[in-house]
């Protein structure tokens, strides 16, 4: 196979940290080369050097026999490299077709003027969209598309630019299972066409399925490159973390049903009817998980419990005492916390450093007069931040660092830390491990178990079934705004959960 791009001894230093310490990496035609490593290992940084976002401190990049000491974004584009970042860069206000050809729209003469040739755009766009399997009119505005469709537009954009190398940085982090399947179909097709694909993901199952070779990084250093057909998933974990990790976090002999109920929701409905008549109980020591398709009502219910969205009916009890949650502020005051699903939109404050982000919650929780009275204590702030940095193993050189300088997974850990710092009685985790590496995941699962053992209520929403299966004592399945089934972890399997979440109304579950 032909080598398309080769990186040799690449070093990248940021003030205070060496993100890449002499990494060599190559991309061949017709293969999926997986880049694996813990949070902050340097994966995104390595790819940002290829796309021209970062300039390497030293090292060499060879494309088609030509050597560069660094690439500008224009070099990168001209040499056929496209990157699909996790934060998609399609322009919502433009149509699909315009997005594909942005920057080099085909023009036509109209008397004295040149105008954009829309019929040409649409013709060419249609062909490309077919390749990526997106069944949409090129004239559709991008804002109408789902996340996975936007991602398909990004891939189509790479094809429209005639890219030879397509880099995907955690493309599956926000996709559902079926969307991942269609992404893989596209990737296989691109392989057949001789493209080189770089695939970054923390989901090992996916990596085994789609990858050809894997390169593992650790703390900016090179660990090794292997053919995936010759290794197992456990080998990957060992290469990456240096040890094996536990698969289950339940106490086998524990019978929580005899424990007191510490949290209860009765007959909860949302004003917009996205959640209807939902009831559940949580016992001391139990971890309760919520499964279901996207939009089936899991996060929607959590938002209502947390007071972020209006309810039309329902009662909520902590330790048997009814609480009213009319806003997140009142919910927090009553002892609830909710790790929100989307860290960029509802999670962190880009203008705050790590310590300030983490201390927002404890400060609000201890304030009076509707959240406005009280003074800020720098000492408390530093202490809370250090505690969470320690507990969650956040990789940063100082808690006075801006969150935007952290790697994706470490940003997610800051969000977790922010909510854990509030020391709440009941903690809702909505997709808590998005973008977090396997080693840290296992630490977070142990942490959740510890919280439950200490008598805190732990509720988890997750689209990753293996995650729910390995940590939850009970799994509730949502379908169309209702809980349709509760599974004890001993009887729960991927198959029966998927069946319950997709079965038709009339069918027996």
């Amino acid at each position, binding site marked *: 196979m032909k080598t398309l791009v080769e990186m040799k001894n690449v070093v990248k230093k940021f003030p205070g940290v060496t993100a890449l*310490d002499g990494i060599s990496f190559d991309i061949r035609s017709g293969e999926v080369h997986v880049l694996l490593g813990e949070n902050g290992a340097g994966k995104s940084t390595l790819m940002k050097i290829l796309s021209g976002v970062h300039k390497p401190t030293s090292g060499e990049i060879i494309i088609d026999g030509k050597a560069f000491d660094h690439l500008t974004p224009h070099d990168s584009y001209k040499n056929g490299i496209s990157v699909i970042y996790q934060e998609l860069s399609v322009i919502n206000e433009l149509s699909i077709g315009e997005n594909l050809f942005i920057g080099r729209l085909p023009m036509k003469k109209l008397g004295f003027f040149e105008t954009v040739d829309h019929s040409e755009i649409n013709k060419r766009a249609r062909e490309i969209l077919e390749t990526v399997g997106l069944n949409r009119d090129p004239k559709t505005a991008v804002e109408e598309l789902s996340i996975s469709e936007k991602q398909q537009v990004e891939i189509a954009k790479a094809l429209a630019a005639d890219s030879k190398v397509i880099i995907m940085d955690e493309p599956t982090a926000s996709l559902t299972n079926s969307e991942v399947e269609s992404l893989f179909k596209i990737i296989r097709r691109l392989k057949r066409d001789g493209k080189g694909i770089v695939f970054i993901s923390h989901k090992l199952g996916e990596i085994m399925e789609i990858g050809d070779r894997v390169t593992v990084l650790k703390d900016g250093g090179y660990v090794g490159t292997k053919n995936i057909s010759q290794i197992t998933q456990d080998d990957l974990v060992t290469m990456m973390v240096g040890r094996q990790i536990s698969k289950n976090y339940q106490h086998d002999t524990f019978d929580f049903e005899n424990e007191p109920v510490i949290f209860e929701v009765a007959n909860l409905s949302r004003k917009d009817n996205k959640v209807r008549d939902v009831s559940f109980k949580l016992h001391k020591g139990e971890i309760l998980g919520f499964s279901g398709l996207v939009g089936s009502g899991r996060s929607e219910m959590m938002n209502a419990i947390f007071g972020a969205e209006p309810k039309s009916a329902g009662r909520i009890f902590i330790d048997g005492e009814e609480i009213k949650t009319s806003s997140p502020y009142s919910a927090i005051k009553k002892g609830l916390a909710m790790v929100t699903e989307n860290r960029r939109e*509802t999670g962190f404050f880009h203008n705050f450093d790590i310590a300030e982000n983490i201390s927002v919650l404890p400060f609000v929780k201890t304030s009076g007069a509707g*959240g406005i009275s009280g*003074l800020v204590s720098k000492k408390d702030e530093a202490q809370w931040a250090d505690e969470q940095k320690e507990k969650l193993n956040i990789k940063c050189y*100082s808690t006075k660092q801006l969150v935007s300088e952290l790697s994706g997974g470490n940003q997610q850990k800051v969000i977790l830390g922010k909510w854990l710092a509030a020391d709440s009685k009941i903690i809702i985790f909505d997709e808590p491990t998005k973008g977090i590496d396997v080693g840290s995941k296992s630490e977070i699962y142990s942490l959740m178990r510890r919280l439950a053992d200490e008598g805190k209520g732990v509720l988890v929403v997750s689209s990753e079934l293996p995650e729910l299966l390995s940590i939850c004592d009970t799994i509730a399945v949502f379908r169309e705004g209702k809980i349709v089934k509760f599974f004890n972890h001993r009887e729960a399997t991927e198959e029966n959960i998927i069946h319950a979440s997709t079965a038709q109304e009339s069918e027996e579950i």
Partner: protein
Amino acid sequence: MPTKTKERELTFSQAWQRYGTLGILVLLLVILAILRPSFFFKTSTITQILSQSSVNILIALGEFFAILIAGIDLSVGSVVALSGMFMAKLMVSGTSPIAAVLLGVLMGALLGFINGILVNSTGLHPFIITLGTQAIFRGVTLIISDSSAVFGFPASFSRFMAQRIFYVPVAAIIAIAVALILAFLTKQTKLGRNIYALGGNRESAWYSGINIKLHTLIVFVISGICAGIAGVVLLGRVGSAEPAAATGFETYAIAAAIIGGTSFFGGKGKIFGVVMGGLIIGVINFGMNLLSVSSTLQQVVMGALIIGSVTLDRFVAGRK
């Protein structure tokens, strides 16, 4: 293995963010000192610059909060005029100056409160709301004053406002006091922290238990109070309440905040920067008067300065 160092060297862009405005101010003063040394090295010059900048700094301090939550307050000039007119009317009709001043500042707070309530209840951008109230408040000023100036304040008021303590005019002392209180609010209180959070990310703020409407309301009340206090200082300096007073002052206030490093996108900025921004504008105005630059040309310079400083800031901050 990554090599981690505890301390990292201050990059140029960070140094710029921290000391840039102070540097510009010093630079301007040096230029002025070279061009007109005879004028410059007189204590009266400093006194004059301070006293002239006070009104603008006071308004800008309030404007700062409106910009901090990614909003804006265009009504500040009208609030200065209306609360000033209200005070003047009270004083000439025999109310004691102290009571009149307190009621006037309270009027500023009330007008800010109205802005806040309108922003919260309509959900419209503060730009639109305060563009509207700018006209309304100005209209009310014209109505209650019958479109004519009010003067003849008690001597105690005029004398107090004209005082100097160690060459520092009362107006400047008031501005400094307000700035110190607000610096304390932004740095040391949860309220201040929450306002920065709200400016950084509204959604995150809401999920973190920060009451968005309450904080928005407080921000506009602060802006109103600052404008009300600026109204007091202006009355003291001019000696009369003009219905057209402080017209266009919002431009200078916004300029001071922005030159001082406040981000228009919200969540970033410092009180110290705003004071520096206000002084920079004050020095430029003073300098142009000293060099007898025509007032029309002064406008051009001021406009260019706003665009120039923000561009420079962007450029040096390295955000492409």
